[in-house]
């Protein structure tokens, strides 16, 4: 139970940090911010790695893990790259 409470604490505090960090984004950056944060949500790849990498897991779980790795990596790599492409177009005069 304390474990769950600990994780919950982390979650709630991180939400607050998120709200604080991302207030007042200029509209120019809405799309890159969205696709950049989207790439970060690919962090679920960590879970996929753990799942697929544990030799003791049932085959079904590991297969799902492998699929998840592929999907999440597309999300991560594609997300950061596309954001980079977009941001490089924004320039000042």
């Amino acid at each position, binding site marked *: 139970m304390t474990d769950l409470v600990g994780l919950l604490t982390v979650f709630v505090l991180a939400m607050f940090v998120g709200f604080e960090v991302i207030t007042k984004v200029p509209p120019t950056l809405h799309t890159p911010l969205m696709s950049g944060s989207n*790439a970060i949500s690919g962090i679920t790849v960590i879970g996929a790695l753990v799942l697929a990498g544990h030799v003791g897991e049932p085959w079904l779980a590991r297969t799902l893990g492998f699929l998840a790795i592929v999907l999440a990596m597309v999300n991560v790599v594609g997300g950061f790259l596309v954001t980079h492409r977009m941001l490089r177009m924004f320039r000042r005069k």
Partner: protein
Amino acid sequence: MTRDLLYLLAASLFIVGLRMMGHPRTAVRGNLVGALGMLVAIGATLPGLGLPLLLVAMVVGSALGVVAATRVKMTAMPEMVGLLNGLGGAASVLVAGGEGASGGAAGVATAAGGLIGSVTFFGRYVAFGKLAEFLAVSRALKPWQGAVKYGFSGLVAAGALASAVGGNPAAGAAGLAIAGLLLLRRETFPGMNVAKAAVLLLALAAAAMAAGGSGYWTLVAVAGVLGVLLTWSIGGADMPVVIALLNSYSGLAAAATGFVIGNTVLIISGALVGASGIILSGIMCRAMNRSLVNVVLGAFGGAAAGPKADEVYRTVKATSAEEVAMLLESARRVVIVPGYGMAVAQAQHAVRDLANLVEKEFGAEVVYAIHPVAGRMPGHMNVLLAEADVPYGKLKELDEINAAMESTDVCIVVGANDVVNPLARTDPSSPIAGMPIVDADRARTCVVVKRSLGPGFAGIPNPLFAKEKTLMLFKDAREAFVEIAAAVKAR
């Protein structure tokens, strides 16, 4: 111990990166800092796992990501972001489900992971379909496209039936509903095949697990229906809100997965993404003067209210490229109001060319009025104009542009409709009443570039088009701007 410290480092990098992404000058570096955080997190996870196969999966995924990210056109960006986001949601579903299959920490968190991830994924699927215009539009399919289409729906239906036979009628009904809903589609977007493959994989996984009798996949199926329904009723102009909202969900799905496997870096990053998505959807809602609930329930009143189109459009005046060039010649200040039509016609470069020409030849000041919900995702117009090398100092927000509208000589509306409809100010019974708009009707002259008098998303006529000071240029946006530029050069 070291691993947890590295996770802490990764989470900190995400926070710093996101913060830097909030400012134009530091945004590029912010994105790289975020990527570095991801690298640290993955690097910390790998040691001690069965490596070779993992690396193969990672390389495959990365390669697909690189191809998708480098090939996509800027005009297809809403679809691209949606696609990536949906894949992230699907990954969360699989991880949470796989953990359940291995008898890991089940319970509320697993359920939440499956639920949110599935809503994200199926919601995205429909949103993507609408954006790429392959859903709900009938067109002849190539044989293999037909095979995928019916194959996928058939698989979902089979999985549903299997679970129904296995004593799970709810999952059966849900699966059948998804299968039916997904039958409506067509394709125009290359990335579609990736989406389809992913959907197929998810369906296979769901069918396999449903056969195993796990309640988890029931939940996934139900949430899938929810995701489809949620997005199905949402029209074009609400798309920015939904896209931001689904982005937030994908973060929350990752966080839920973090709860399942007891991993704090997932929880922190998921929460950050969740928060950013919520903030963005809030901004979008405010820009339409509507509540989130109102948008999600698709409660737009339709065309019934307000004046009839024929009545309103009796005094519409059409114009020519030459006449517009003449207007521009004597203008001191020009405002361009872009909308989704500019994206569709891929007219951003032509628009930029004309703006530069007018500044150079006639010495006028040209700025752009960016409505927050113009286009199909938050900041859509900004991205397109940035692609066309328009410096972002020229992109003005509503308050600034409206304050100077009365001293604007020519206001050119290109492919926008509802966001310049003065009914929002004047008619309290209108479905868009109270929505902040660009006051194009207050400029000295207004030129509207539009292919026809067809209504915008709100389905109501726009009195701006019939104003005495308004001239309509009935043309494709790109053609129109090229012709005006030619006429300017000829003067």
